[in-house]
């Protein structure tokens, strides 16, 4: 975990006022260590993601919460699906086969 100064030093092109605004908006949620902010790897990566979306995809402050909301939903789904996969994988082979057979093909594309 790193503090705000180290984060600003590490990520070129990020200024403090901007970071504070993102934290106010709860786009970034650092840990609170007795009044000081601490950023984990996931927070640092998320700062880079927001910078990328602004520069490369021209997503402005208005649209950013919508995009972040969708991103968060997808990653939550992916995490949950991964847990489900882990659980399925841990089953004996015959149970996995049963599940495989019960899984309908993904071709019910609405008529």
């Amino acid at each position: 975990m790193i503090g705000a100064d180290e984060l600003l030093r590490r990520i070129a092109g990020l200024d403090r006022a901007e970071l504070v605004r993102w934290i106010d908006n709860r786009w970034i949620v650092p840990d609170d260590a007795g009044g000081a902010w601490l950023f984990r790897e996931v927070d640092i990566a998320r700062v880079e993601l927001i910078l990328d979306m602004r520069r490369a995809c021209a997503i402005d402050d208005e649209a950013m919460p919508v995009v972040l909301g969708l991103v968060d939903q997808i990653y939550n789904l992916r995490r949950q699906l991964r847990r489900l996969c882990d659980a399925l994988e841990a089953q004996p082979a015959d149970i996995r086969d049963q599940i495989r057979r019960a899984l309908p093909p993904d071709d019910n594309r609405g008529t």
Partner: protein
Amino acid sequence: MATQTLYEVLGVARDAGADDIRKAYRRLAKEFHPDLNPGKPEAEARFKSITAAYDILSDPEKRGRYDRGEIDESGAERPRYSYRPHAEGAQGWKYRPEGEMDIGDLDDLFAMFGRGAGGRAGRGGRGEAGFQMPGPDRHYTLTIDFVAAANGGKERLSLAPDQWLDVTIPPGIEQGQILRLKGKGAAGLGGGPPGDALIEVLVAPHQFFRRDGDDIHLDLPVNLPEAVLGARVAVPTITGPVTMTIPKGSDTGTRLRLRGKGIQRRRGDANHAGDQYVTLKVVIGLGDDPELAAFLRGWSDKHKTDPRGTMGGAAGQPTGEAAS
């Protein structure tokens, strides 16, 4: 220590114009040019870093790439922090949308797609009365302070306003260590056993203490009389203040050991204790004191020392007056 930014190397602001950057470069280049500083390897090294910084900052395209974080101080492509592995990794829960699904048990998943437990039985039609499944594990993180991590003890992890887990922290727990509380995860399905709670422990840094394995390190300010004459002073340790003897004739950098005052834990059958290392930092703290100044004037004439002697040529022969 973090590396200097290229702007720091040249001593200019991040938004400095091309002119300012060129002026700063020429001023520093003149000062540190190796041909003007023969036999001073540190000047040459400095000249190299100044030139490397100027190479990037004087080129609008490279400067843009550096500002955007695409290249690092040496001009090399910077490794990207990809969000996906973090978002899907152990810390990803942090940005979980509020009220979003967390598969606590299978019923949550069925509910999400509008299928209750009844639907499951009805659909398959196979007798599933005896279906049992252990509950899934739940993942949490708990941030504790430095001293609590060093000494161990009980911490309370709140899950909801009226729900919590009491967690026993073993002494000397490390950052990122994961504690498993058996049976404290989600309930099992169809009478299956509950899962476990997995708690990732994060340790907040301390204002004064640092840790190296089971040893604790601390910088301790002492004043001039304490260092010169010796003293008995109170020193904080992770188990509370203790009295320590400062030997007379101590100095900044003198390191003293408090045996057994580090982290105490059981290793196998034996108790094991680390030490606390105290590094003295002499602080004069008087500002402009006429009496001390008068004393030192007479004293220093008779006691010549060269505190910068170990720095070799680096501190000799000034080439100019530093601005202050």
